[in-house]
Protein backbone atom coordinates (compact mmCIF):
# COMPACT_ATOMS: atom_id res chain seq x y z
CA UNK A 1 0.00 0.00 0.00
CA UNK A 2 1.32 3.39 -0.94
CA UNK A 3 1.86 5.73 1.99
CA UNK A 4 -0.18 8.93 1.70
CA UNK A 5 1.08 12.07 3.32
CA UNK A 6 -1.79 13.79 5.14
CA UNK A 7 -2.40 17.36 4.11
CA UNK A 8 -0.95 19.74 6.66
CA UNK A 9 -1.53 23.34 7.54
CA UNK A 10 0.62 23.99 10.55
CA UNK A 11 -0.15 27.69 10.57
CA UNK A 12 -3.65 27.20 11.94
CA UNK A 13 -2.49 25.00 14.80
CA UNK A 14 0.26 27.48 15.63
CA UNK A 15 -1.24 28.45 19.04
CA UNK A 16 -1.03 24.85 20.24
CA UNK A 17 2.46 24.48 18.80
CA UNK A 18 3.55 27.66 20.59
CA UNK A 19 2.21 26.46 23.93
CA UNK A 20 3.74 22.98 23.59
CA UNK A 21 7.03 24.28 22.24
CA UNK A 22 7.20 26.88 24.97
CA UNK A 23 6.74 24.15 27.56
CA UNK A 24 9.58 22.13 26.06
CA UNK A 25 11.77 25.20 25.93
CA UNK A 26 11.12 25.97 29.59
CA UNK A 27 12.05 22.38 30.38
CA UNK A 28 15.57 22.99 29.11
CA UNK A 29 15.86 26.71 29.84
CA UNK A 30 15.84 25.87 33.52
CA UNK A 31 19.41 24.57 33.24
CA UNK A 32 20.76 27.65 31.49
CA UNK A 33 19.12 30.34 33.61
CA UNK A 34 21.28 31.25 36.60
CA UNK A 35 19.76 30.70 40.03
CA UNK A 36 19.12 34.38 40.81
CA UNK A 37 17.07 34.84 37.63
CA UNK A 38 14.75 31.90 38.25
CA UNK A 39 11.94 34.31 39.04
CA UNK A 40 11.63 34.87 35.28
CA UNK A 41 9.95 31.52 34.75
CA UNK A 42 6.36 32.71 35.37
CA UNK A 43 6.80 35.78 33.19
CA UNK A 44 8.33 33.69 30.40
CA UNK A 45 5.34 31.34 30.67
CA UNK A 46 3.02 34.31 30.50
CA UNK A 47 4.80 35.58 27.38
CA UNK A 48 4.24 32.24 25.65
CA UNK A 49 0.57 32.16 26.60
CA UNK A 50 0.01 35.75 25.47
CA UNK A 51 1.70 35.05 22.12
CA UNK A 52 -0.56 32.04 21.64
CA UNK A 53 -3.58 34.12 22.65
CA UNK A 54 -2.77 36.78 20.04
CA UNK A 55 -2.40 34.06 17.41
CA UNK A 56 -5.69 32.50 18.49
CA UNK A 57 -7.61 35.76 18.33
CA UNK A 58 -6.21 36.24 14.83
CA UNK A 59 -7.79 32.93 13.84
CA UNK A 60 -11.31 34.09 14.76
CA UNK A 61 -13.54 33.53 11.76
CA UNK A 62 -11.27 30.91 10.24
CA UNK A 63 -12.98 27.68 9.35
CA UNK A 64 -10.93 24.75 8.20
CA UNK A 65 -9.09 21.65 9.16
CA UNK A 66 -5.70 20.06 8.98
CA UNK A 67 -4.05 16.65 9.30
CA UNK A 68 -6.43 15.41 6.63
CA UNK A 69 -5.73 11.89 5.43
CA UNK A 70 -6.39 11.31 1.75
CA UNK A 71 -10.10 10.84 1.20
CA UNK A 72 -10.93 11.40 4.86
CA UNK A 73 -12.02 14.15 7.19
CA UNK A 74 -9.50 16.37 8.98
CA UNK A 75 -8.36 15.19 12.41
CA UNK A 76 -7.93 18.73 13.69
CA UNK A 77 -10.48 21.42 12.91
CA UNK A 78 -10.06 25.10 13.57
CA UNK A 79 -13.44 26.83 13.61
CA UNK A 80 -14.91 29.51 15.80
CA UNK A 81 -16.00 26.86 18.28
CA UNK A 82 -12.39 25.78 18.77
CA UNK A 83 -11.11 29.35 18.73
CA UNK A 84 -13.62 30.50 21.35
CA UNK A 85 -12.65 27.62 23.64
CA UNK A 86 -8.95 28.17 23.03
CA UNK A 87 -9.35 31.76 24.17
CA UNK A 88 -10.99 30.44 27.36
CA UNK A 89 -8.14 27.97 27.94
CA UNK A 90 -5.40 30.52 27.32
CA UNK A 91 -7.08 33.04 29.63
CA UNK A 92 -7.34 30.31 32.26
CA UNK A 93 -3.62 29.66 31.87
CA UNK A 94 -2.70 33.35 32.08
CA UNK A 95 -4.84 33.99 35.16
CA UNK A 96 -3.52 30.84 36.83
CA UNK A 97 0.06 32.02 36.31
CA UNK A 98 -0.86 35.40 37.81
CA UNK A 99 -2.32 33.88 40.97
CA UNK A 100 0.48 31.31 41.23
CA UNK A 101 3.58 33.51 41.30
CA UNK A 102 3.43 34.73 44.87
CA UNK A 103 1.58 31.73 46.26
CA UNK A 104 4.24 29.30 45.08
CA UNK A 105 7.03 31.39 46.58
CA UNK A 106 5.48 31.75 50.00
CA UNK A 107 4.54 28.09 50.23
CA UNK A 108 7.92 26.85 49.01
CA UNK A 109 6.49 25.16 45.93
CA UNK A 110 8.32 27.33 43.45
CA UNK A 111 9.77 24.67 41.22
CA UNK A 112 10.17 25.39 37.50
CA UNK A 113 8.31 22.21 36.55
CA UNK A 114 5.09 23.86 37.71
CA UNK A 115 4.87 26.24 34.77
CA UNK A 116 6.06 23.65 32.29
CA UNK A 117 3.32 21.22 33.35
CA UNK A 118 0.80 24.03 33.27
CA UNK A 119 1.70 24.75 29.64
CA UNK A 120 1.44 21.09 28.65
CA UNK A 121 -1.95 20.84 30.27
CA UNK A 122 -3.18 23.98 28.49
CA UNK A 123 -2.03 22.53 25.15
CA UNK A 124 -4.04 19.38 25.89
CA UNK A 125 -7.12 21.47 26.65
CA UNK A 126 -6.72 23.37 23.40
CA UNK A 127 -6.57 20.13 21.45
CA UNK A 128 -9.78 18.98 23.17
CA UNK A 129 -11.70 21.76 21.46
CA UNK A 130 -10.04 21.20 18.09
CA UNK A 131 -10.18 17.40 17.95
CA UNK A 132 -12.32 16.00 15.17
CA UNK A 133 -11.35 12.40 15.72
CA UNK A 134 -12.02 10.23 18.75
CA UNK A 135 -8.40 9.08 18.88
CA UNK A 136 -7.26 12.71 19.07
CA UNK A 137 -9.91 13.42 21.73
CA UNK A 138 -8.37 10.64 23.80
CA UNK A 139 -4.81 11.87 23.27
CA UNK A 140 -5.82 15.42 24.19
CA UNK A 141 -7.63 14.13 27.28
CA UNK A 142 -4.47 12.38 28.46
CA UNK A 143 -2.28 15.37 27.63
CA UNK A 144 -4.65 17.47 29.72
CA UNK A 145 -4.86 15.01 32.61
CA UNK A 146 -1.34 13.66 33.14
CA UNK A 147 0.22 17.05 34.01
CA UNK A 148 -2.72 17.65 36.36
CA UNK A 149 -2.06 14.37 38.20
CA UNK A 150 1.48 15.58 38.85
CA UNK A 151 0.42 19.13 39.71
CA UNK A 152 -2.15 17.99 42.27
CA UNK A 153 0.64 16.14 44.08
CA UNK A 154 2.97 19.10 43.75
CA UNK A 155 2.86 19.97 47.46
CA UNK A 156 4.58 16.71 48.48
CA UNK A 157 5.56 15.66 51.12
CA UNK A 158 2.28 17.02 52.47
CA UNK A 159 0.17 13.85 52.78
CA UNK A 160 -3.14 15.27 51.62
CA UNK A 161 -1.55 16.56 48.43
CA UNK A 162 -0.13 13.10 47.74
CA UNK A 163 -3.50 11.56 48.54
CA UNK A 164 -5.10 13.98 46.13
CA UNK A 165 -2.69 13.06 43.32
CA UNK A 166 -3.15 9.34 43.97
CA UNK A 167 -6.95 9.52 43.96
CA UNK A 168 -7.01 11.72 40.89
CA UNK A 169 -4.62 9.44 39.04
CA UNK A 170 -6.41 6.18 39.86
CA UNK A 171 -9.89 7.46 39.09
CA UNK A 172 -8.64 9.39 36.06
CA UNK A 173 -7.00 6.28 34.65
CA UNK A 174 -10.16 4.30 35.37
CA UNK A 175 -12.39 6.81 33.61
CA UNK A 176 -9.99 7.04 30.67
CA UNK A 177 -10.24 3.30 30.20
CA UNK A 178 -14.04 3.47 30.13
CA UNK A 179 -13.74 6.28 27.61
CA UNK A 180 -11.38 4.23 25.42
CA UNK A 181 -13.82 1.33 25.58
CA UNK A 182 -16.49 3.71 24.31
CA UNK A 183 -14.20 4.72 21.43
CA UNK A 184 -13.48 1.06 20.66
CA UNK A 185 -17.20 0.25 20.52
CA UNK A 186 -17.84 3.29 18.33
CA UNK A 187 -15.15 2.05 15.99
CA UNK A 188 -16.57 -1.46 16.17
CA UNK A 189 -20.04 -0.29 15.21
CA UNK A 190 -19.18 2.31 12.57
CA UNK A 191 -15.71 1.33 11.34
CA UNK A 192 -14.29 4.80 11.89
CA UNK A 193 -13.17 7.16 14.64
CA UNK A 194 -13.50 10.32 12.57
CA UNK A 195 -16.43 12.38 13.90
CA UNK A 196 -18.00 13.38 10.52
CA UNK A 197 -17.92 9.75 9.39
CA UNK A 198 -19.34 8.56 12.71
CA UNK A 199 -22.18 11.02 12.11
CA UNK A 200 -22.95 9.38 8.75
CA UNK A 201 -22.86 5.82 10.00
CA UNK A 202 -24.02 5.87 13.61
CA UNK A 203 -27.73 5.55 12.82
CA UNK A 204 -27.10 2.06 11.43
CA UNK A 205 -25.00 1.02 14.39
CA UNK A 206 -27.90 -0.26 16.49
CA UNK A 207 -27.38 -1.50 20.01
CA UNK A 208 -23.60 -1.28 19.90
CA UNK A 209 -23.77 2.43 19.10
CA UNK A 210 -25.95 3.01 22.15
CA UNK A 211 -23.57 1.15 24.45
CA UNK A 212 -20.68 3.18 23.00
CA UNK A 213 -22.57 6.42 23.63
CA UNK A 214 -23.28 5.40 27.22
CA UNK A 215 -19.59 4.74 27.83
CA UNK A 216 -18.58 8.05 26.29
CA UNK A 217 -21.06 9.83 28.60
CA UNK A 218 -19.55 8.07 31.63
CA UNK A 219 -16.02 8.95 30.52
CA UNK A 220 -16.85 12.62 30.04
CA UNK A 221 -18.93 12.77 33.22
CA UNK A 222 -15.89 11.62 35.20
CA UNK A 223 -13.72 14.33 33.65
CA UNK A 224 -16.16 17.17 34.25
CA UNK A 225 -17.04 15.83 37.73
CA UNK A 226 -20.75 15.21 37.22
CA UNK A 227 -22.69 13.10 39.71
CA UNK A 228 -22.65 10.13 40.21
CA UNK A 229 -19.05 10.24 38.98
CA UNK A 230 -17.98 13.17 41.17
CA UNK A 231 -16.64 11.29 44.21
CA UNK A 232 -13.01 12.17 43.54
CA UNK A 233 -13.58 15.91 43.23
CA UNK A 234 -13.78 17.19 46.85
CA UNK A 235 -10.74 15.25 48.06
CA UNK A 236 -8.65 16.12 45.02
CA UNK A 237 -9.61 19.80 45.10
CA UNK A 238 -8.97 20.04 48.83
CA UNK A 239 -5.57 18.36 48.77
CA UNK A 240 -4.08 19.95 45.66
CA UNK A 241 -2.28 23.29 45.95
CA UNK A 242 -4.96 25.98 45.72
CA UNK A 243 -3.65 27.44 42.46
CA UNK A 244 -3.82 24.00 40.87
CA UNK A 245 -7.37 23.59 42.21
CA UNK A 246 -8.31 26.88 40.58
CA UNK A 247 -6.77 25.76 37.29
CA UNK A 248 -8.42 22.32 37.44
CA UNK A 249 -11.83 23.58 38.39
CA UNK A 250 -11.99 25.73 35.28
CA UNK A 251 -9.58 24.29 32.71
CA UNK A 252 -10.15 20.58 33.09
CA UNK A 253 -13.90 21.05 33.31
CA UNK A 254 -14.18 23.27 30.24
CA UNK A 255 -11.81 20.90 28.42
CA UNK A 256 -14.12 17.99 29.15
CA UNK A 257 -17.15 19.93 27.98
CA UNK A 258 -15.34 21.10 24.83
CA UNK A 259 -14.82 17.55 23.64
CA UNK A 260 -18.22 16.45 24.93
CA UNK A 261 -20.04 19.13 22.91
CA UNK A 262 -18.05 18.35 19.80
CA UNK A 263 -18.58 14.59 20.06
CA UNK A 264 -22.24 14.62 21.07
CA UNK A 265 -23.50 17.52 19.00
CA UNK A 266 -21.35 17.05 15.90
CA UNK A 267 -21.20 13.26 15.72
CA UNK A 268 -24.07 11.74 17.66
CA UNK A 269 -27.14 13.98 17.17
CA UNK A 270 -29.07 11.09 15.61
CA UNK A 271 -28.86 9.22 18.86
CA UNK A 272 -30.20 12.29 20.67
CA UNK A 273 -33.36 10.49 21.70
CA UNK A 274 -31.20 8.11 23.66
CA UNK A 275 -28.56 10.38 25.16
CA UNK A 276 -30.54 13.56 25.87
CA UNK A 277 -32.59 11.93 28.68
CA UNK A 278 -29.38 10.36 30.03
CA UNK A 279 -27.51 13.66 30.07
CA UNK A 280 -30.56 15.43 31.52
CA UNK A 281 -30.72 12.82 34.28
CA UNK A 282 -27.03 13.20 35.07
CA UNK A 283 -27.51 16.99 35.11
CA UNK A 284 -30.40 16.74 37.59
CA UNK A 285 -28.46 14.47 39.92
CA UNK A 286 -25.35 16.65 39.64
CA UNK A 287 -27.29 19.81 40.48
CA UNK A 288 -28.94 18.26 43.52
CA UNK A 289 -25.84 16.53 44.91
CA UNK A 290 -23.49 19.46 44.24
CA UNK A 291 -25.72 22.15 45.71
CA UNK A 292 -27.06 20.21 48.69
CA UNK A 293 -23.77 18.75 49.87
CA UNK A 294 -21.98 22.10 49.51
CA UNK A 295 -24.17 23.48 52.30
CA UNK A 296 -22.44 21.48 55.03
CA UNK A 297 -18.83 22.11 54.01
CA UNK A 298 -16.76 24.04 56.58
CA UNK A 299 -13.73 24.28 54.26
CA UNK A 300 -13.99 26.81 51.44
CA UNK A 301 -11.94 24.68 49.03
CA UNK A 302 -14.32 21.78 49.55
CA UNK A 303 -17.29 24.11 49.24
CA UNK A 304 -15.97 25.44 45.94
CA UNK A 305 -15.34 21.84 44.84
CA UNK A 306 -19.01 20.99 45.36
CA UNK A 307 -19.94 24.29 43.76
CA UNK A 308 -17.89 23.32 40.70
CA UNK A 309 -19.79 20.01 40.59
CA UNK A 310 -23.02 22.00 40.64
CA UNK A 311 -21.83 24.25 37.82
CA UNK A 312 -20.99 21.17 35.75
CA UNK A 313 -24.68 20.39 36.17
CA UNK A 314 -25.75 23.75 34.73
CA UNK A 315 -23.49 23.27 31.70
CA UNK A 316 -24.91 19.75 31.34
CA UNK A 317 -28.37 21.32 31.01
CA UNK A 318 -27.07 23.24 28.01
CA UNK A 319 -25.54 20.07 26.56
CA UNK A 320 -28.86 18.27 26.91
CA UNK A 321 -30.59 21.19 25.21
CA UNK A 322 -28.09 21.42 22.37
CA UNK A 323 -29.79 18.95 20.03
CA UNK A 324 -33.25 20.51 20.00
CA UNK A 325 -32.34 24.15 20.55
CA UNK A 326 -30.08 26.21 18.28
CA UNK A 327 -28.79 28.09 21.33
CA UNK A 328 -27.78 25.10 23.44
CA UNK A 329 -24.13 25.08 22.41
CA UNK A 330 -23.77 28.85 22.56
CA UNK A 331 -25.38 28.93 26.02
CA UNK A 332 -22.83 26.36 27.20
CA UNK A 333 -19.97 28.39 25.69
CA UNK A 334 -21.16 31.64 27.27
CA UNK A 335 -21.68 29.91 30.63
CA UNK A 336 -18.14 28.59 30.56
CA UNK A 337 -16.75 32.04 29.77
CA UNK A 338 -18.61 33.58 32.71
CA UNK A 339 -17.66 30.66 34.97
CA UNK A 340 -13.99 31.11 34.04
CA UNK A 341 -13.81 34.68 35.35
CA UNK A 342 -16.07 34.19 38.38
CA UNK A 343 -14.46 31.03 39.64
CA UNK A 344 -10.85 32.09 39.08
CA UNK A 345 -11.65 35.39 40.82
CA UNK A 346 -13.13 33.58 43.82
CA UNK A 347 -10.09 31.32 43.98
CA UNK A 348 -7.77 34.33 43.80
CA UNK A 349 -9.41 35.65 46.99
CA UNK A 350 -9.10 32.20 48.59
CA UNK A 351 -5.38 32.26 47.76
CA UNK A 352 -5.02 35.71 49.29
CA UNK A 353 -6.39 34.38 52.57
CA UNK A 354 -4.34 31.18 52.55
CA UNK A 355 -1.33 32.75 54.24
CA UNK A 356 0.33 29.38 54.84
CA UNK A 357 -0.15 26.17 52.92
CA UNK A 358 -3.45 24.63 54.02
CA UNK A 359 -4.18 27.36 56.60
CA UNK A 360 -6.80 30.04 56.31
CA UNK A 361 -9.08 27.98 54.08
CA UNK A 362 -11.89 27.46 56.58
CA UNK A 363 -15.08 29.49 56.25
CA UNK A 364 -14.45 30.91 59.75
CA UNK A 365 -11.30 32.58 58.44
CA UNK A 366 -13.52 34.84 56.34
CA UNK A 367 -15.08 36.45 59.41
CA UNK A 368 -14.49 40.17 59.46
CA UNK A 369 -12.86 40.36 56.05
CA UNK A 370 -15.25 43.20 55.21
CA UNK A 371 -13.54 45.43 57.79
CA UNK A 372 -9.98 44.26 57.28
CA UNK A 373 -9.86 44.34 53.47
CA UNK A 374 -13.05 46.06 52.24
CA UNK A 375 -12.17 45.88 48.53
CA UNK A 376 -11.17 42.24 48.63
CA UNK A 377 -14.35 41.42 50.56
CA UNK A 378 -16.45 43.37 48.08
CA UNK A 379 -14.91 41.44 45.18
CA UNK A 380 -15.48 38.12 46.98
CA UNK A 381 -19.09 39.07 47.69
CA UNK A 382 -19.54 39.91 44.02
CA UNK A 383 -18.06 36.57 42.90
CA UNK A 384 -20.35 34.74 45.33
CA UNK A 385 -23.37 36.60 43.92
CA UNK A 386 -22.23 35.71 40.41
CA UNK A 387 -21.88 32.03 41.33
CA UNK A 388 -25.40 32.15 42.80
CA UNK A 389 -26.71 33.83 39.66
CA UNK A 390 -27.91 37.23 40.87
CA UNK A 391 -28.02 40.08 38.32
CA UNK A 392 -26.02 42.03 37.22
CA UNK A 393 -23.31 39.38 37.08
CA UNK A 394 -21.85 37.08 34.44
CA UNK A 395 -23.21 34.12 36.35
CA UNK A 396 -26.76 35.44 36.00
CA UNK A 397 -26.46 35.95 32.23
CA UNK A 398 -24.98 32.49 31.85
CA UNK A 399 -27.81 30.85 33.77
CA UNK A 400 -30.37 32.91 31.88
CA UNK A 401 -29.12 31.67 28.49
CA UNK A 402 -28.83 28.08 29.72
CA UNK A 403 -32.38 27.98 31.09
CA UNK A 404 -33.75 29.69 27.98
CA UNK A 405 -32.08 27.07 25.78
CA UNK A 406 -33.53 24.32 27.97
CA UNK A 407 -37.05 25.74 27.64
CA UNK A 408 -36.62 26.07 23.86
CA UNK A 409 -35.59 22.42 23.74
CA UNK A 410 -38.78 21.31 25.57
CA UNK A 411 -36.85 20.56 28.74
CA UNK A 412 -38.89 22.87 30.97
CA UNK A 413 -38.63 20.51 33.95
CA UNK A 414 -34.83 20.62 33.71
CA UNK A 415 -34.88 24.42 33.76
CA UNK A 416 -37.12 24.29 36.85
CA UNK A 417 -34.65 21.94 38.58
CA UNK A 418 -31.90 24.41 37.68
CA UNK A 419 -33.76 27.37 39.15
CA UNK A 420 -34.65 25.56 42.37
CA UNK A 421 -31.08 24.36 42.93
CA UNK A 422 -29.81 27.89 42.22
CA UNK A 423 -31.95 29.10 45.10
CA UNK A 424 -30.51 26.38 47.32
CA UNK A 425 -26.99 27.41 46.28
CA UNK A 426 -27.72 30.92 47.55
CA UNK A 427 -27.55 29.58 51.09
CA UNK A 428 -23.91 28.56 51.05
CA UNK A 429 -22.63 31.29 48.72
CA UNK A 430 -24.30 34.07 50.64
CA UNK A 431 -23.13 32.62 53.95
CA UNK A 432 -19.60 33.61 52.92
CA UNK A 433 -20.84 37.17 52.41
CA UNK A 434 -22.65 37.02 55.75
CA UNK A 435 -19.50 35.84 57.54
CA UNK A 436 -17.39 38.55 55.92
CA UNK A 437 -19.59 41.47 56.93
CA UNK A 438 -21.51 40.42 60.05
CA UNK A 439 -18.68 39.12 62.20
CA UNK A 440 -15.41 40.36 63.56
CA UNK A 441 -12.34 38.34 63.03
CA UNK A 442 -8.69 38.54 62.47
CA UNK A 443 -6.35 36.70 60.23
CA UNK A 444 -3.55 37.37 57.89
CA UNK A 445 -4.29 38.38 54.30
CA UNK A 446 -1.49 38.16 51.77
CA UNK A 447 -2.42 40.03 48.65
CA UNK A 448 0.39 41.03 46.36
CA UNK A 449 0.05 43.11 43.25
CA UNK A 450 -0.45 40.29 40.72
CA UNK A 451 -3.19 38.81 42.88
CA UNK A 452 -4.98 42.13 43.31
CA UNK A 453 -4.79 42.67 39.55
CA UNK A 454 -6.29 39.26 38.94
CA UNK A 455 -9.14 39.89 41.36
CA UNK A 456 -9.81 43.28 39.77
CA UNK A 457 -9.70 42.01 36.20
CA UNK A 458 -11.90 39.01 36.83
CA UNK A 459 -14.42 41.11 38.75
CA UNK A 460 -14.48 43.62 35.89
CA UNK A 461 -14.95 40.85 33.33
CA UNK A 462 -17.76 39.33 35.39
CA UNK A 463 -19.41 42.75 35.58
CA UNK A 464 -19.09 43.30 31.82
CA UNK A 465 -20.57 39.88 31.11
CA UNK A 466 -23.39 40.73 33.49
CA UNK A 467 -24.21 44.20 32.22
CA UNK A 468 -23.59 43.72 28.50
CA UNK A 469 -23.96 40.03 27.76
CA UNK A 470 -25.34 40.64 24.25
CA UNK A 471 -22.17 41.02 22.16
CA UNK A 472 -20.44 38.17 23.99
CA UNK A 473 -23.41 35.89 23.53
CA UNK A 474 -23.44 36.76 19.83
CA UNK A 475 -19.80 35.74 19.73
CA UNK A 476 -20.68 32.46 21.42
CA UNK A 477 -23.46 32.05 18.86
CA UNK A 478 -21.00 32.57 16.02
CA UNK A 479 -18.79 29.99 17.64
CA UNK A 480 -21.59 27.47 18.03
CA UNK A 481 -22.96 27.99 14.55
CA UNK A 482 -20.10 26.07 12.99
CA UNK A 483 -20.94 22.94 14.92
CA UNK A 484 -24.61 23.19 14.08
CA UNK A 485 -23.81 23.71 10.40
CA UNK A 486 -21.68 20.61 10.49
CA UNK A 487 -24.68 18.68 11.73
CA UNK A 488 -26.90 20.08 9.02
CA UNK A 489 -24.29 19.54 6.32
CA UNK A 490 -23.54 15.95 7.39
Amino acid sequence: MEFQVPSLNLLIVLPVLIVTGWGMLLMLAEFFIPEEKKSWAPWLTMLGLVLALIQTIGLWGYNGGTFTPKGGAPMVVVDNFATFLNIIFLLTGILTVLISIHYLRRTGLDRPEYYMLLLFSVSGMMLMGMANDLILVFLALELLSIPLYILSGFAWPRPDSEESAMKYFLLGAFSSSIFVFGIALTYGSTGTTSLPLVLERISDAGMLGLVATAMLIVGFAFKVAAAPFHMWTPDVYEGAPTTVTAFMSVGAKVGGFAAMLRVFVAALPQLGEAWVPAVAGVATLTLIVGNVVAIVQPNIKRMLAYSSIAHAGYIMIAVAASVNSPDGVSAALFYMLAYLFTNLGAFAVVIALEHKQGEGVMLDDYKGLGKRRPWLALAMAYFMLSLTGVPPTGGFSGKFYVFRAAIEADLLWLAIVGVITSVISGYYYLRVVYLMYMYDGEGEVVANRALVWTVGLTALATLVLGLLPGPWFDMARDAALQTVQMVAGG
Partner: protein
Amino acid sequence: MLTDWQFIALFVVLSPIFPAMPVIINHLLGPKKPNPIKQQTYECGIETVGDSWVQFKVQYYIYALVFVIFDIEAVFLFPIAAAYDQLGLFAVGAAVLFIFLLGDGLAYAWGRGVLEWV
Protein backbone atom coordinates in the same frame (compact mmCIF):
# COMPACT_ATOMS: atom_id res chain seq x y z
CA MET B 1 -21.87 -9.13 11.67
CA LEU B 2 -23.18 -11.60 14.23
CA THR B 3 -21.12 -14.50 12.91
CA ASP B 4 -17.96 -12.45 13.50
CA TRP B 5 -18.95 -12.10 17.15
CA GLN B 6 -19.68 -15.82 17.39
CA PHE B 7 -16.06 -16.49 16.56
CA ILE B 8 -14.98 -14.21 19.40
CA ALA B 9 -17.35 -15.96 21.80
CA LEU B 10 -15.97 -19.30 20.65
CA PHE B 11 -12.46 -17.99 21.10
CA VAL B 12 -13.20 -16.84 24.66
CA VAL B 13 -14.52 -20.30 25.53
CA LEU B 14 -11.76 -22.29 23.83
CA SER B 15 -8.71 -20.19 24.61
CA PRO B 16 -8.42 -21.11 28.32
CA ILE B 17 -8.82 -24.81 27.47
CA PHE B 18 -5.75 -25.03 25.25
CA PRO B 19 -3.13 -23.96 27.81
CA ALA B 20 -4.97 -25.84 30.57
CA MET B 21 -5.09 -29.17 28.72
CA PRO B 22 -1.33 -30.04 28.75
CA VAL B 23 -1.11 -29.28 32.47
CA ILE B 24 -4.15 -31.41 33.28
CA ILE B 25 -3.11 -34.31 31.01
CA ASN B 26 0.39 -34.21 32.46
CA HIS B 27 -1.07 -34.36 35.93
CA LEU B 28 -3.29 -37.31 35.09
CA LEU B 29 -0.88 -39.44 33.06
CA GLY B 30 2.56 -38.66 34.53
CA PRO B 31 4.13 -41.02 37.08
CA LYS B 32 4.48 -39.53 40.58
CA LYS B 33 7.50 -40.58 42.69
CA PRO B 34 8.22 -37.60 44.99
CA ASN B 35 11.39 -37.25 47.03
CA PRO B 36 12.77 -34.24 48.99
CA ILE B 37 15.19 -33.12 46.30
CA LYS B 38 12.50 -33.20 43.63
CA GLN B 39 10.22 -31.09 45.82
CA GLN B 40 12.68 -28.22 46.02
CA THR B 41 12.01 -25.02 44.15
CA TYR B 42 13.80 -25.02 40.82
CA GLU B 43 15.81 -21.90 40.24
CA CYS B 44 18.22 -21.96 37.31
CA GLY B 45 20.19 -24.81 38.78
CA ILE B 46 22.05 -22.61 41.27
CA GLU B 47 21.10 -22.43 44.93
CA THR B 48 20.07 -18.98 46.13
CA VAL B 49 22.53 -17.03 48.23
CA GLY B 50 20.89 -15.39 51.22
CA ASP B 51 17.28 -14.28 51.43
CA SER B 52 15.48 -13.72 48.14
CA TRP B 53 13.41 -10.88 49.66
CA VAL B 54 16.21 -8.32 49.35
CA GLN B 55 15.39 -4.66 48.97
CA PHE B 56 16.34 -3.11 45.68
CA LYS B 57 17.57 0.44 45.70
CA VAL B 58 14.63 2.70 45.03
CA GLN B 59 16.81 4.73 42.67
CA TYR B 60 16.24 2.07 40.04
CA TYR B 61 12.80 3.51 39.34
CA ILE B 62 14.41 6.51 37.69
CA TYR B 63 16.37 4.22 35.40
CA ALA B 64 13.13 2.48 34.54
CA LEU B 65 11.60 5.84 33.65
CA VAL B 66 14.53 6.91 31.48
CA PHE B 67 14.51 3.49 29.86
CA VAL B 68 10.97 4.18 28.70
CA ILE B 69 12.35 6.97 26.49
CA PHE B 70 14.58 4.55 24.60
CA ASP B 71 11.92 1.89 24.60
CA ILE B 72 9.39 4.16 22.93
CA GLU B 73 12.05 5.32 20.51
CA ALA B 74 12.78 1.77 19.41
CA VAL B 75 9.12 0.78 19.14
CA PHE B 76 8.26 3.68 16.87
CA LEU B 77 11.43 3.88 14.82
CA PHE B 78 11.43 0.22 13.73
CA PRO B 79 8.27 0.58 11.62
CA ILE B 80 9.68 3.71 10.02
CA ALA B 81 12.93 1.92 9.29
CA ALA B 82 11.09 -1.07 7.83
CA ALA B 83 9.11 1.07 5.37
CA TYR B 84 11.79 3.67 4.85
CA ASP B 85 12.01 3.46 1.05
CA GLN B 86 8.28 4.21 0.58
CA LEU B 87 7.88 7.05 3.01
CA GLY B 88 9.83 9.96 1.61
CA LEU B 89 10.77 13.22 3.21
CA PHE B 90 7.61 13.56 5.33
CA ALA B 91 8.47 10.50 7.38
CA VAL B 92 12.06 11.66 7.84
CA GLY B 93 10.76 14.94 9.19
CA ALA B 94 8.29 13.17 11.46
CA ALA B 95 10.97 10.81 12.76
CA VAL B 96 13.41 13.66 13.40
CA LEU B 97 10.73 15.60 15.27
CA PHE B 98 9.91 12.49 17.27
CA ILE B 99 13.55 11.93 18.23
CA PHE B 100 13.83 15.59 19.13
CA LEU B 101 10.84 15.30 21.50
CA LEU B 102 12.35 12.26 23.19
CA GLY B 103 15.76 13.95 23.29
CA ASP B 104 14.15 16.88 25.08
CA GLY B 105 12.92 14.51 27.78
CA LEU B 106 16.31 12.86 28.08
CA ALA B 107 18.08 16.23 28.25
CA TYR B 108 15.72 17.28 31.02
CA ALA B 109 16.45 14.10 32.98
CA TRP B 110 20.16 14.61 32.40
CA GLY B 111 20.01 18.20 33.56
CA ARG B 112 18.19 17.14 36.73
CA GLY B 113 21.15 14.87 37.48
CA VAL B 114 19.19 11.68 37.12
CA LEU B 115 21.96 9.92 35.23
CA GLU B 116 24.46 10.27 38.07
CA TRP B 117 24.63 7.40 40.49
CA VAL B 118 24.47 8.58 44.06
